[in-house]
């Protein structure tokens, strides 16, 4: 990434601009919009305060006390966030890369993945909604049209036929408390479950426990089917 011979690859400065947009978007997700806070964040994360430049390039609105992304800036930030988080999912679920290597790798990938490649990864993974670290993945074109030509590698547990086993890759629960319950009951990412039945409720075997739940929960447990 240091010196790139390919013209299409972004320059280091462009990467930093993208990063900065990502930082502002993430900060606004957790409710931080004040200008001094944002400036401090940018300085600590990127060793440089590019806020002014972002304003000049029309990507952030610097009028007033707070910092907000313009339509253009937000689109670019979301696109970056999507690529980065999809990369994390791919590294984690398909390539089984150990946790500590995921983030650095994703941080580099995010800049070089094209929109089309991102959509292919997204489809391959079954249009995931959260990164492995449970941050939302902004939906892309492919999610809206629900492309399924590429068979998804990761599926909800509800799609696994009775008698089949699958490895849990992540849990997506609308309410977090149920997530906590499942984890405590042994439905932990990385463990193998055997689906025993679908009807009248789902029943799965996890190690020595049998656990029964309804579709609402089965649709929130994403697994990697095993032959």
């Amino acid at each position, binding site marked *: 990434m240091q010196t790139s011979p390919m013209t299409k690859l972004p320059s280091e400065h462009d990467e930093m601009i993208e990063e900065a947009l990502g930082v502002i978007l993430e900060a606004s997700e957790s409710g931080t919009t004040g200008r001094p806070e944002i400036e401090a964040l940018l300085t600590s994360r990127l060793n440089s305060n590019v806020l002014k430049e972002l304003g000049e390039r029309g990507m952030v609105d610097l009028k007033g006390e707070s910092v907000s992304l313009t339509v253009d800036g937000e689109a670019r930030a979301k696109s970056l966030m999507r690529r980065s988080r999809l990369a994390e999912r791919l590294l984690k679920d398909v390539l089984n890369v150990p946790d500590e290597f995921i983030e650095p790798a994703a941080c580099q990938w995010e800049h070089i993945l094209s929109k089309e490649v991102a959509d292919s990864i997204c489809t391959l993974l079954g249009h995931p909604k959260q990164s492995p670290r449970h*941050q939302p993945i902004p939906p892309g074109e492919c999610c809206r049209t629900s492309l399924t030509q590429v068979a998804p590698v990761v599926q909800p547990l509800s799609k696994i036929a009775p008698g089949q086993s699958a490895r849990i890759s992540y849990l997506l629960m609308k309410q977090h408390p149920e997530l906590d319950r499942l984890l405590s009951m042994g439905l932990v990412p990385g463990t193998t479950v055997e689906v025993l039945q679908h009807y009248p409720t789902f029943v799965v075997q996890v190690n020595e426990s049998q656990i*029964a739940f309804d579709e609402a929960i089965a649709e929130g447990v994403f697994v990697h089917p095993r032959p």
Partner: protein
Amino acid sequence: MTSASPNLIEGTPPGQTRDLRTLAIVGHPNVGKSVIFHALTGKYVNVSNFPGTTVDLSMGRGKFGNAEWSVCDTPGVISLRARTDDERVARDFLLETEPDVILQVADAKNLSKAIHLTLELSEFNKPMVLALNMADEAQDRGITIDFQRLSALLGIPVIETVAINGEGIPALKEALSAARLLKVGPRYDRQLVESLEKIETSFSADRTGHRAVAISLFNNDRTVWNQAASRATAGRLGQLEADVAEAQKRFSRPAELMMFEGKQHVVQEIVGEVLAVKKPGGRGWLGKLGLWSMRPFPGYLIAALALYSMYQFVGVFGAGFLVGVMENDVFGRFINPAVTKAVNFAVPFPIVRDAIVGEYGVMTMALTYAFALILPIVTTFFLFFSFLEDSGYLPRLAVMMDRFFRLMGLNGRAVLPMVLGLGCDTMATVTTRIMDTKKEKIILSLLLTLAVPCSAQLGAILGMAAGLSWRVWFIWIGVLSGTMMLVGWAAAKVIPGSRSPFLVELPPLRLPKFGNIAKKVKMRLKWYTKEVIPLFVLATFVLFILDKIHLLSRITTLASPFVVGFLGLPALATESFLIGFFRRDYGAAGFFQMAQAGLLDPRQVAVSMVVITLFMPCVAHLLITIKERGFRVAMLISAFVFGFALLVGGSLNWILQRTSFL
């Protein structure tokens, strides 16, 4: 929290104060906490094979390892990030009383889960002992655990037990005096630890377990604020709130997940070192039966078979045969004539004689009902229910019934209170706590009050309809199940709140041990008789007084347009309704006698069966409902049920009079 440690210590004689140590038993549901509590204290609490049946704290005393202990059995918890009422009860007990020692009881078959909870318990910062129970079942499944290594890794005594047979109990008693602080704890993200430590700076230094409070606060659990406030040093509450809010804002990932990960790595390291599993060779026949019982075929068949067996055992054997023997032979031929003779001989005042052996006599009416009619039925029901409970079948029935309960805004977990309600609605109302949301608890309380007949009453109803056409049964079952579904469905629409998803852990099917069943039945019967007999006597005495001051006949006349006109029943039925206010089974018994005496035609039998079934269960039930649901909700439920029961009865009467179905 009842008579827990501080008060208890003050209440003991001075010489013993230093020796009384407090012990809290904590663990997942269904791992044998109550059995171990019994082994330590000699006190028996209800044990069952359904998650969530110990809903309160049980207190007892025991002497072991040269010390006297006050032992508390807490409700089963899946996690101490308390989400349900029982989990809160357990957590608050640990935080409030700060017991000297925590004994964690865990299932040896599920070591990872056990260690997860151990790590959560480490945050209460108390000396601990870990009992890995059901070691025999683990062995059968090819699971070997290196206990010494595990004990060394955790830094606390780890004891292998098969509590139900008493194996390992002496070693456990000894180990409790050697309890130690855990050597390991969760390894949270560094930034999370910083935030937690910041929160903890607001707590006073003379208490322990701050980490557990801080985590619940971070986890946005509002129910822990009381605890937090009681620990905060003066004037720090505002700072505390600010720290918690800041911590919550700092991380964009779900709190539960961050905490889970902090434990998961440690758990994997420990379990990896001490656990060896030989792959088992398929499931035994009980395992297979367990799976079959949850499939549409033959699951529904098995459920129907269970229901039919219950009818045979409770209905035919208990309510038919045993009641016959008790009522006609034991009481009719021996006890009542003998008591009557004795009273007539010994008591000179006719009014007192009447009060004891007259038409509304304590002996001839109340005690005859209680012992001859109700006791055999309740006993057979509890025998059957305890068998089902211990076998582990009920959670599987929950799987089969989940879709049905969903129509009523509930989920399959409601099956336990519903089936228990067939025995006693009052007991069942206590167990409504196993539901997660307030809405579900209210719906369940309403349905228990309205449409679930208790066993005492079922007995009388079985008797009333005996010998009548199947059509009477058809009407009763039809109206009752229709009412239940309609009211449940409407309540689900009207009552605000949400339904929680169905999620239950299935314990293995086991062959129940007779000794355990007998103990359970004994305990339930004790509870039941304590509650029932005073009420029977009271209700009868009120009737007696009303009769003597001629108020009874006046009430009967007053109510007769309604009872006779609207419900189409004989005027005498008013009496049964009156006593039905105390206990509806007693009211049902009244109708039973009227039917026996030939005072009711089939239409009247059907109407009275329906009305008395829908009626409010009893005074005790009302009190428990107030306690569990609050006064306002309990009153709303009662008013609705009372009006609705009469309305349904009146409509049924109107329809039956105009058709020739009966």
